C-alpha cells in the first residue's frame, strides 16, 4: 500500500472535509481519525484547510439547500484529479432527512461521488478502511 500511495500521490492524500448539513455526528468520528488510536497521518492521509490543496473532498450531510451552492463551489475549487467521498447515510441518500423541503437528498444529487461510506455515523475504523481502499484504487 505504501508503494501504491507513493507512486500515485507522492506519499499523501490531502482531504478537505465539507459538512453539507450533517447533524455533526459524522464530524465527531472524522475528528476521531486524528486521535492516537487511529492516527490517520501514518497512512499518508491528512486533512487540509483549503479545497485548493485537496485531492479528496469528504462530504457529510444530506446536502441542505442552503449549503448546495457552497458545496458546488468547493468542488469547483478542488483541482483535478479529485475524488469525492460521501460519508454517512445522509450523504448517501438524505438518510432520515430525505424528503424535506430543505435538503437536496444526498451528495450525488449535487456533485459526482466516487465512494460512499455508509453508517450513522460510520465508525473511525470504517472510515479508515474506506480511505485506504480509495488510496489503493486511485488512479
Amino acid at each position: 500500500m505504501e508503494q501504491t500511495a507513493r507512486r500515485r500521490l507522492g506519499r499523501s492524500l490531502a482531504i478537505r472535509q465539507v459538512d453539507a448539513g450533517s447533524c455533526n455526528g459524522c464530524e465527531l468520528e472524522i475528528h476521531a481519525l486524528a486521535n492516537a488510536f487511529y492516527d490517520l497521518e501514518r497512512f499518508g492521509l491528512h486533512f487540509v484547510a483549503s479545497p485548493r490543496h485537496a485531492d479528496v473532498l469528504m462530504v457529510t450531510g444530506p446536502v441542505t439547500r442552503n449549503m448546495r451552492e457552497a458545496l458546488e463551489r468547493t468542488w469547483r475549487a478542488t483541482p483535478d484529479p479529485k475524488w469525492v467521498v460521501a460519508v454517512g447515510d445522509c450523504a448517501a441518500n438524505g438518510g432520515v432527512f430525505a424528503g424535506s423541503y430543505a435538503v437536496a437528498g444526498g451528495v450525488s444529487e449535487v456533485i459526482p461521488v466516487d465512494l460512499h461510506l455508509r453508517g450513522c455515523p460510520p465508525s473511525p475504523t470504517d472510515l479508515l478502511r474506506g480511505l485506504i481502499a480509495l488510496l489503493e484504487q486511485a488512479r
Partner: protein
Amino acid sequence: MTNVQTLIKEGLPADNHRPFPRARVTGKTWLKAIDALATEQCSLLGLWATPGSVHLALSEGTEIAVLSLDCPGGRFPSVGDRHAPAIRLERAVADLYGLDPVGGRDTRPWLDHGRWGVRHPLGAREAATGAPPAYPFLASEGESLHQIPVGPVHAGIIEPGHFRFTANGETVVRLEERLGYVHKGIEGLMAGAPLAQAAKLAGRTSGDSTVAYALAFARAVEAAAGIEAPPRAIYIRALMAELERIANHFGDIGAICNDAAFAMMHAHCGVLRERVLRFAGKAFGHRLMMDCVVPGGVGTDLAPEDAAALRTLLGQLRDDFAPLVELYDGTASLQDRTVGTGILKPELARWFAPGGFVGRATGRTFDARKALEYPPYDALQFEVPTRQDGDVNARVWIRIEEVGQSLSLVEQILDALPGGPVTRDVPPSAGEGLALIEGFRGDVLAWVRLAADGRVVHSHLRDPSWFQWPLLEAVIEGNIVADFPLCNKSFNCSYSGHDL
C-alpha cells in the same frame, strides 16, 4: 404568587399538557409576559410556533410554563422588541410559519436563505422563485475598519456557518453571525411522523447531544402519554447522558487547548474521549449512543460484564485526567491565552439566560438536573460547579469540574442500578408534553403534541445554542481576531441543533 403562576391563571388552561402548565392567553397577557422577561423576572426557555399560533416557554426559578397566543392575522406582538434573546427565535418563526412579530427589531430572514423553492414551508406555503436575495449585514462604520468574511465552509472539520468580522487592525470591533446553512427541516419531518421515526430525528438534531435530545424527546412523549419509563431504564438513560457529557467535555477541553496551539492536551484528551466512546460502542452497540434512548425506555440493557468494565474505566479516566488538569493549570503560556479572553459579562448572562458552561462560567447556577430534579437525579448526590470570571479559562474549568461530578454520578448510578425491564409500551393517546434535559452544552427543550393514534402532530426542539450564539458575538468584541477560535471553541455552540 409568582409571575409565571399569574400569567397562567389569566389564560385558558390546556388540560392535557404535562408536566408543566400551558395556557392559551390573550394579547394582553402576552404583553405582560414580555414585560416579565424584559424586567428579568422570568427567563426565556423557548419561543416556537404551530400553524397559526405562537408559544412562549418561561421559567422562574424552578417553575416552568407555556403561554400560547393565536395569531388570526398571522401576526403577534414581538417578544424580541423588548427582550433581545427572542429575536432569532422570532425570525425563525417568521421564516417557517409566516407569523410576523409586530414591532420586531430585526425583520431579516434567518433560516430561510431563499433557496428552498418555498416560503413559510410549515405555514401558508408560497412558491418562491428567483435568485436568493443578498443578505444585508449590519453596518459597521468608522475609520480604518476592514471586514473578514469567514465561511460557511470553514478551514477545520467543523459545521458550516458564516462569520462576518469587522476589525480595526487585529481588534474585532463587531462580529455578526449568519446561520441556517444546515437547516434540514426537522420540524416539518416530525409533523405526522410515527413515534419511532420522530425519535430518530430527535436523536439527529445535534449528533454530539444525541442522548440529551433522545432523552428530552422521550420524556416529553412519556409526559404526553402520562407514563414513566421503568426504573432501570431511567438509571441507564442517566448513565448514557453522563457518559455523553464526559466524552464531550474531554473533547472540548482538548480542542480548546489545541486552538491555543497546545497540542499535547488535545492528544491526551482525545485518548480519554475515545475510551469512553469505545465503551459505549461495546456496551450499547453505538459509540455515540444514537437511538439508545427511546420513548418508553432504552433500546439496550447494560450487561453485568459491561457494568464491571465501566467501573474499571472510571478509575482509569480519573487517574489519567488528574495530571492533565495539572498540566492545564500549570502551563503559563496556555493560561496566557485562556485567562481574561472572551469575557461574558454577568448582565448579559442574566439577560440571555444561557445554559451549560457558558452560563455557569458567568455565575448562573441553572442546571436542569438540579433545578427540576428529574429522575434519577433527585436520588443522586452532585454539585453544580459555577465560576464568576466568564472567560475562556472559566468555561474550561466548568467542564473540568463537571467531568469530576459526572464520573461520580456514573459510579452512583452503577451502585444504585435497579433491576427489571428497560422498556415499556407507549400507549397511543392524544396529549402534549414538555421536557427540559441537561445536555453537555446546556438545557435541551423538547415539546411534543401527540395525536390519538400515537403519531407526532408537532414537535419543537430548542437547542441551548439559541441563547449562546448571540453571546459569542458579544464576548469577541475587543479581542484579537486570532483569539476567535479559542472563544468559539470555548462556547462550542451547535450549528445543526440551532439550524434545525
